[in-house]
Protein backbone atom coordinates (compact mmCIF):
# COMPACT_ATOMS: atom_id res chain seq x y z
CA UNK A 1 0.00 0.00 0.00
CA UNK A 2 1.35 3.40 -0.94
CA UNK A 3 1.71 6.10 1.65
CA UNK A 4 -0.94 8.22 -0.06
CA UNK A 5 -3.43 5.28 0.02
CA UNK A 6 -2.70 4.76 3.70
CA UNK A 7 -3.26 8.43 4.43
CA UNK A 8 -6.45 8.42 2.39
CA UNK A 9 -7.82 5.47 4.40
CA UNK A 10 -6.88 7.17 7.62
CA UNK A 11 -8.61 10.36 6.54
CA UNK A 12 -11.80 8.44 5.72
CA UNK A 13 -11.78 6.73 9.16
CA UNK A 14 -11.15 10.09 10.84
CA UNK A 15 -14.01 11.68 8.87
CA UNK A 16 -16.48 8.93 9.77
CA UNK A 17 -15.43 9.09 13.45
CA UNK A 18 -15.92 12.86 13.43
CA UNK A 19 -19.39 12.49 11.89
CA UNK A 20 -20.46 9.93 14.51
CA UNK A 21 -19.05 12.01 17.37
CA UNK A 22 -20.75 15.17 16.06
CA UNK A 23 -24.08 13.37 15.72
CA UNK A 24 -23.93 11.99 19.27
CA UNK A 25 -22.94 15.35 20.76
CA UNK A 26 -25.68 17.26 18.88
CA UNK A 27 -28.30 14.66 19.79
CA UNK A 28 -27.26 14.78 23.45
CA UNK A 29 -27.36 18.57 23.54
CA UNK A 30 -30.78 18.64 21.86
CA UNK A 31 -32.32 16.27 24.40
CA UNK A 32 -30.07 17.12 27.32
CA UNK A 33 -32.77 17.36 29.99
CA UNK A 34 -34.08 13.88 29.10
CA UNK A 35 -30.68 12.33 29.61
CA UNK A 36 -30.05 13.50 33.15
CA UNK A 37 -31.53 11.63 36.10
CA UNK A 38 -31.22 13.82 39.20
CA UNK A 39 -31.71 10.82 41.48
CA UNK A 40 -28.47 9.34 40.25
CA UNK A 41 -26.54 12.32 41.60
CA UNK A 42 -28.20 12.04 45.03
CA UNK A 43 -27.43 8.35 45.11
CA UNK A 44 -23.81 8.91 44.24
CA UNK A 45 -23.41 11.71 46.78
CA UNK A 46 -24.85 9.40 49.41
CA UNK A 47 -22.66 6.41 48.72
CA UNK A 48 -19.48 7.94 47.27
CA UNK A 49 -17.86 7.88 50.70
CA UNK A 50 -18.24 4.12 50.70
CA UNK A 51 -17.04 3.71 47.13
CA UNK A 52 -13.79 5.69 47.10
CA UNK A 53 -11.27 4.97 49.86
CA UNK A 54 -11.14 8.52 51.26
CA UNK A 55 -12.66 11.99 50.95
CA UNK A 56 -9.76 13.43 48.96
CA UNK A 57 -10.12 10.92 46.14
CA UNK A 58 -13.90 11.32 46.17
CA UNK A 59 -13.45 15.04 45.54
CA UNK A 60 -10.40 14.89 43.26
CA UNK A 61 -11.44 12.10 40.92
CA UNK A 62 -15.13 11.41 41.47
CA UNK A 63 -16.55 14.92 41.85
CA UNK A 64 -13.81 16.74 39.94
CA UNK A 65 -12.78 14.09 37.41
CA UNK A 66 -13.33 16.49 34.52
CA UNK A 67 -11.02 18.99 36.19
CA UNK A 68 -8.23 16.41 36.34
CA UNK A 69 -8.94 15.47 32.73
CA UNK A 70 -8.64 19.14 31.79
CA UNK A 71 -5.34 19.48 33.66
CA UNK A 72 -4.00 16.48 31.78
CA UNK A 73 -4.79 18.10 28.47
CA UNK A 74 -3.42 21.44 29.60
CA UNK A 75 -0.12 19.61 30.03
CA UNK A 76 -0.36 18.21 26.51
CA UNK A 77 -1.07 21.72 25.22
CA UNK A 78 1.99 23.02 27.10
CA UNK A 79 4.13 20.31 25.49
CA UNK A 80 2.80 21.17 22.04
CA UNK A 81 3.49 24.87 22.64
CA UNK A 82 7.04 24.13 23.80
CA UNK A 83 7.53 21.91 20.77
CA UNK A 84 6.39 24.66 18.44
CA UNK A 85 8.51 27.36 20.09
CA UNK A 86 11.72 25.52 20.96
CA UNK A 87 11.69 22.18 19.19
CA UNK A 88 10.61 23.26 15.75
CA UNK A 89 11.21 20.42 13.35
CA UNK A 90 12.54 17.99 15.97
CA UNK A 91 9.65 15.53 15.58
CA UNK A 92 10.42 15.13 11.88
CA UNK A 93 13.86 13.74 12.55
CA UNK A 94 15.94 16.83 11.91
CA UNK A 95 19.54 16.62 13.01
CA UNK A 96 19.84 17.09 16.74
CA UNK A 97 21.58 20.20 17.89
CA UNK A 98 24.46 20.22 20.28
CA UNK A 99 23.60 20.42 23.94
CA UNK A 100 24.62 23.54 25.84
CA UNK A 101 28.15 23.71 27.21
CA UNK A 102 26.94 23.41 30.80
CA UNK A 103 26.89 19.62 30.49
CA UNK A 104 30.66 19.55 29.96
CA UNK A 105 31.21 21.18 33.30
CA UNK A 106 29.76 18.43 35.48
CA UNK A 107 32.19 17.00 38.01
CA UNK A 108 33.22 13.36 38.55
CA UNK A 109 31.04 13.08 41.64
CA UNK A 110 28.04 14.35 39.70
CA UNK A 111 28.67 11.90 36.87
CA UNK A 112 29.14 9.04 39.34
CA UNK A 113 26.01 9.72 41.37
CA UNK A 114 23.49 11.11 38.88
CA UNK A 115 22.36 7.90 37.20
CA UNK A 116 21.89 5.75 40.35
CA UNK A 117 20.05 8.67 41.92
CA UNK A 118 17.86 8.95 38.82
CA UNK A 119 16.83 5.28 39.14
CA UNK A 120 15.95 5.80 42.80
CA UNK A 121 14.00 8.98 41.93
CA UNK A 122 12.06 7.07 39.27
CA UNK A 123 11.21 4.36 41.82
CA UNK A 124 10.10 6.93 44.39
CA UNK A 125 7.92 8.66 41.79
CA UNK A 126 6.24 5.37 40.90
CA UNK A 127 5.63 4.72 44.61
CA UNK A 128 3.88 8.11 44.87
CA UNK A 129 1.78 7.35 41.76
CA UNK A 130 0.67 3.95 43.05
CA UNK A 131 -0.34 5.30 46.45
CA UNK A 132 -2.28 8.25 45.06
CA UNK A 133 -5.69 6.92 46.04
CA UNK A 134 -4.86 6.26 49.69
CA UNK A 135 -2.11 8.77 50.50
CA UNK A 136 -1.24 12.35 49.54
CA UNK A 137 0.22 11.96 46.07
CA UNK A 138 -1.02 10.71 42.74
CA UNK A 139 -0.30 11.05 39.06
CA UNK A 140 0.87 14.68 38.94
CA UNK A 141 3.37 14.69 41.83
CA UNK A 142 4.56 11.16 41.04
CA UNK A 143 5.02 11.88 37.34
CA UNK A 144 6.89 15.09 38.20
CA UNK A 145 9.30 13.19 40.48
CA UNK A 146 9.95 10.62 37.73
CA UNK A 147 10.59 13.43 35.23
CA UNK A 148 13.00 14.99 37.75
CA UNK A 149 15.11 11.83 37.46
CA UNK A 150 15.29 12.41 33.71
CA UNK A 151 16.14 16.13 34.19
CA UNK A 152 19.00 15.13 36.46
CA UNK A 153 20.59 12.79 33.93
CA UNK A 154 20.08 15.21 31.04
CA UNK A 155 21.64 18.12 32.94
CA UNK A 156 24.63 16.10 34.17
CA UNK A 157 25.42 13.93 31.14
CA UNK A 158 23.89 15.97 28.32
CA UNK A 159 21.30 14.84 25.82
CA UNK A 160 23.65 12.74 23.70
CA UNK A 161 25.28 10.82 26.53
CA UNK A 162 22.38 10.48 28.95
CA UNK A 163 21.77 6.87 30.08
CA UNK A 164 18.01 7.47 29.97
CA UNK A 165 17.73 7.44 26.18
CA UNK A 166 14.18 8.65 25.78
CA UNK A 167 13.28 9.56 22.22
CA UNK A 168 10.67 12.04 21.02
CA UNK A 169 8.51 9.28 19.62
CA UNK A 170 8.72 7.15 22.76
CA UNK A 171 7.72 10.04 25.00
CA UNK A 172 4.89 11.13 22.70
CA UNK A 173 3.60 7.52 22.72
CA UNK A 174 3.83 7.33 26.52
CA UNK A 175 1.98 10.62 26.88
CA UNK A 176 -0.73 9.48 24.48
CA UNK A 177 -1.14 6.12 26.21
CA UNK A 178 -1.48 7.91 29.57
CA UNK A 179 -4.19 10.23 28.23
CA UNK A 180 -5.97 7.28 26.58
CA UNK A 181 -6.01 5.30 29.86
CA UNK A 182 -7.77 8.28 31.48
CA UNK A 183 -10.24 8.75 28.61
CA UNK A 184 -11.10 5.04 28.23
CA UNK A 185 -11.61 4.61 31.99
CA UNK A 186 -14.24 7.33 31.66
CA UNK A 187 -15.86 5.54 28.72
CA UNK A 188 -16.21 2.38 30.83
CA UNK A 189 -18.27 4.36 33.33
CA UNK A 190 -20.38 5.69 30.48
CA UNK A 191 -21.10 2.19 29.15
CA UNK A 192 -21.89 0.58 32.49
CA UNK A 193 -24.17 3.37 33.74
CA UNK A 194 -25.97 3.47 30.39
CA UNK A 195 -26.67 -0.25 30.75
CA UNK A 196 -27.99 0.02 34.30
CA UNK A 197 -29.69 3.41 34.36
CA UNK A 198 -30.37 4.19 30.72
CA UNK A 199 -28.20 7.28 30.95
CA UNK A 200 -24.46 7.51 30.69
CA UNK A 201 -22.13 9.19 33.18
CA UNK A 202 -18.66 9.75 31.86
CA UNK A 203 -15.90 8.99 34.38
CA UNK A 204 -18.37 7.20 36.66
CA UNK A 205 -16.38 5.11 39.09
CA UNK A 206 -17.31 1.63 37.93
CA UNK A 207 -15.95 -1.59 39.29
CA UNK A 208 -16.60 -0.62 42.86
CA UNK A 209 -19.45 -1.55 45.08
CA UNK A 210 -18.15 -3.01 48.30
CA UNK A 211 -21.54 -3.07 49.99
CA UNK A 212 -23.48 -4.21 46.91
CA UNK A 213 -25.77 -1.19 47.23
CA UNK A 214 -26.05 0.19 43.76
CA UNK A 215 -25.43 -3.08 41.87
CA UNK A 216 -22.87 -1.69 39.49
CA UNK A 217 -20.62 -4.68 39.81
CA UNK A 218 -22.64 -7.30 37.98
CA UNK A 219 -21.16 -9.37 35.13
CA UNK A 220 -17.77 -9.31 36.80
CA UNK A 221 -17.09 -5.65 36.11
CA UNK A 222 -15.85 -5.14 39.65
CA UNK A 223 -13.59 -8.17 39.44
CA UNK A 224 -12.23 -7.07 36.10
CA UNK A 225 -11.37 -3.55 37.20
CA UNK A 226 -10.77 -4.07 40.87
CA UNK A 227 -7.31 -2.91 41.85
CA UNK A 228 -6.00 -5.65 44.13
CA UNK A 229 -6.71 -3.62 47.21
CA UNK A 230 -9.53 -4.13 49.74
CA UNK A 231 -10.36 -0.41 49.75
CA UNK A 232 -11.99 -1.08 46.34
CA UNK A 233 -10.95 2.21 44.78
CA UNK A 234 -12.28 1.18 41.38
CA UNK A 235 -10.85 3.18 38.49
CA UNK A 236 -9.00 5.67 40.70
CA UNK A 237 -5.59 3.92 40.68
CA UNK A 238 -5.84 3.48 36.91
CA UNK A 239 -6.57 7.19 36.48
CA UNK A 240 -3.48 7.91 38.59
CA UNK A 241 -1.39 5.52 36.51
CA UNK A 242 -2.57 7.21 33.30
CA UNK A 243 -1.95 10.72 34.62
CA UNK A 244 1.48 9.63 35.89
CA UNK A 245 2.52 8.37 32.45
CA UNK A 246 1.20 11.52 30.81
CA UNK A 247 2.98 13.88 33.22
CA UNK A 248 6.32 12.07 33.17
CA UNK A 249 6.32 11.97 29.38
CA UNK A 250 5.11 15.56 28.99
CA UNK A 251 7.62 17.11 31.38
CA UNK A 252 10.46 15.00 29.96
CA UNK A 253 9.56 16.17 26.46
CA UNK A 254 9.62 19.79 27.59
CA UNK A 255 13.05 19.24 29.18
CA UNK A 256 14.31 17.59 26.00
CA UNK A 257 13.13 20.42 23.76
CA UNK A 258 14.54 23.08 26.07
CA UNK A 259 17.91 21.31 26.09
CA UNK A 260 17.91 21.05 22.30
CA UNK A 261 17.10 24.71 21.80
CA UNK A 262 19.91 26.96 20.74
CA UNK A 263 20.87 29.89 22.87
CA UNK A 264 20.32 32.37 20.07
CA UNK A 265 16.74 31.20 19.46
Amino acid sequence: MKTSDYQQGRNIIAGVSLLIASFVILKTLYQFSDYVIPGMSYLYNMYSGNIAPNVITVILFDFRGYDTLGETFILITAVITTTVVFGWGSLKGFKKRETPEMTDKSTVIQRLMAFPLAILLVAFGVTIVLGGHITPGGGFPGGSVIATGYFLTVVIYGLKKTPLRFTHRYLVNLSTIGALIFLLSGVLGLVVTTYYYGTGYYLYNTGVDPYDIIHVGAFGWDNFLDYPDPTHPGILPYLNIGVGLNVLAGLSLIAMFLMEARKDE
Partner: protein
Amino acid sequence: MSSEVAALGLANQWGPILFGLIYGIIIGYKVNSEELNKAKYPVILIVSILIAMALGTYPDYQWTLFGHIIRFSEAFFSTVLGVFISMIIRRQ
Protein backbone atom coordinates in the same frame (compact mmCIF):
# COMPACT_ATOMS: atom_id res chain seq x y z
CA MET B 1 0.10 2.70 61.57
CA SER B 2 0.52 -1.03 61.28
CA SER B 3 -2.66 -1.87 63.20
CA GLU B 4 -4.61 0.63 61.09
CA VAL B 5 -3.20 -0.86 57.92
CA ALA B 6 -4.10 -4.34 59.10
CA ALA B 7 -7.60 -3.15 60.02
CA LEU B 8 -8.03 -1.67 56.55
CA GLY B 9 -6.91 -4.96 55.08
CA LEU B 10 -4.07 -3.41 53.10
CA ALA B 11 -1.82 -6.39 53.71
CA ASN B 12 -0.40 -8.83 51.14
CA GLN B 13 -1.45 -6.81 48.11
CA TRP B 14 -0.16 -7.51 44.63
CA GLY B 15 -1.30 -4.28 42.96
CA PRO B 16 1.69 -2.06 43.85
CA ILE B 17 4.15 -4.86 43.02
CA LEU B 18 2.55 -5.56 39.64
CA PHE B 19 2.21 -1.96 38.51
CA GLY B 20 5.61 -1.03 39.97
CA LEU B 21 7.17 -3.73 37.79
CA ILE B 22 5.23 -2.53 34.73
CA TYR B 23 6.30 1.11 35.29
CA GLY B 24 9.89 -0.01 35.86
CA ILE B 25 9.93 -2.05 32.66
CA ILE B 26 8.45 0.83 30.62
CA ILE B 27 11.05 3.32 31.85
CA GLY B 28 13.93 0.84 31.99
CA TYR B 29 13.40 -0.10 28.35
CA LYS B 30 15.10 3.12 27.31
CA VAL B 31 18.00 2.89 29.75
CA ASN B 32 21.35 2.37 28.11
CA SER B 33 22.87 -0.24 30.42
CA GLU B 34 26.35 0.21 28.91
CA GLU B 35 26.59 3.50 30.74
CA LEU B 36 26.17 1.74 34.06
CA ASN B 37 29.27 0.23 35.64
CA LYS B 38 28.45 -3.36 36.68
CA ALA B 39 29.65 -2.67 40.20
CA LYS B 40 26.81 -0.21 40.58
CA TYR B 41 24.09 -2.87 40.20
CA PRO B 42 24.49 -4.44 43.67
CA VAL B 43 25.06 -0.99 45.20
CA ILE B 44 21.79 0.33 43.73
CA LEU B 45 19.94 -2.82 44.84
CA ILE B 46 21.24 -2.58 48.41
CA VAL B 47 20.51 1.16 48.58
CA SER B 48 17.01 0.60 47.21
CA ILE B 49 16.35 -2.09 49.84
CA LEU B 50 17.51 0.32 52.55
CA ILE B 51 15.31 3.14 51.17
CA ALA B 52 12.34 0.78 50.87
CA MET B 53 12.84 -0.22 54.52
CA ALA B 54 13.10 3.44 55.49
CA LEU B 55 9.88 4.21 53.61
CA GLY B 56 8.21 1.49 55.68
CA THR B 57 4.69 0.67 54.69
CA TYR B 58 4.39 3.69 52.37
CA PRO B 59 2.00 3.92 50.52
CA ASP B 60 0.16 2.12 53.32
CA TYR B 61 0.60 -1.38 51.92
CA GLN B 62 2.43 -4.07 53.80
CA TRP B 63 3.13 -7.77 53.71
CA THR B 64 2.66 -10.17 56.57
CA LEU B 65 4.81 -13.29 56.64
CA PHE B 66 4.17 -15.98 59.27
CA GLY B 67 2.23 -13.48 61.31
CA HIS B 68 5.04 -10.90 61.24
CA ILE B 69 4.57 -7.52 59.58
CA ILE B 70 7.26 -6.67 57.03
CA ARG B 71 7.85 -2.93 56.94
CA PHE B 72 8.94 -2.60 53.35
CA SER B 73 7.80 -0.38 50.48
CA GLU B 74 7.29 -3.06 47.86
CA ALA B 75 6.18 -0.56 45.16
CA PHE B 76 9.57 1.16 45.41
CA PHE B 77 11.64 -2.01 45.27
CA SER B 78 9.56 -3.63 42.50
CA THR B 79 10.11 -0.53 40.32
CA VAL B 80 13.89 -0.79 40.73
CA LEU B 81 13.63 -4.51 39.90
CA GLY B 82 11.48 -3.67 36.85
CA VAL B 83 14.13 -1.22 35.58
CA PHE B 84 16.86 -3.86 35.96
CA ILE B 85 14.73 -6.60 34.35
CA SER B 86 14.06 -4.34 31.37
CA MET B 87 17.76 -3.47 31.06
CA ILE B 88 18.71 -7.16 31.14
CA ILE B 89 16.05 -8.11 28.57
CA ARG B 90 17.22 -5.34 26.26
CA ARG B 91 20.86 -6.40 26.59
CA GLN B 92 20.06 -9.99 25.52
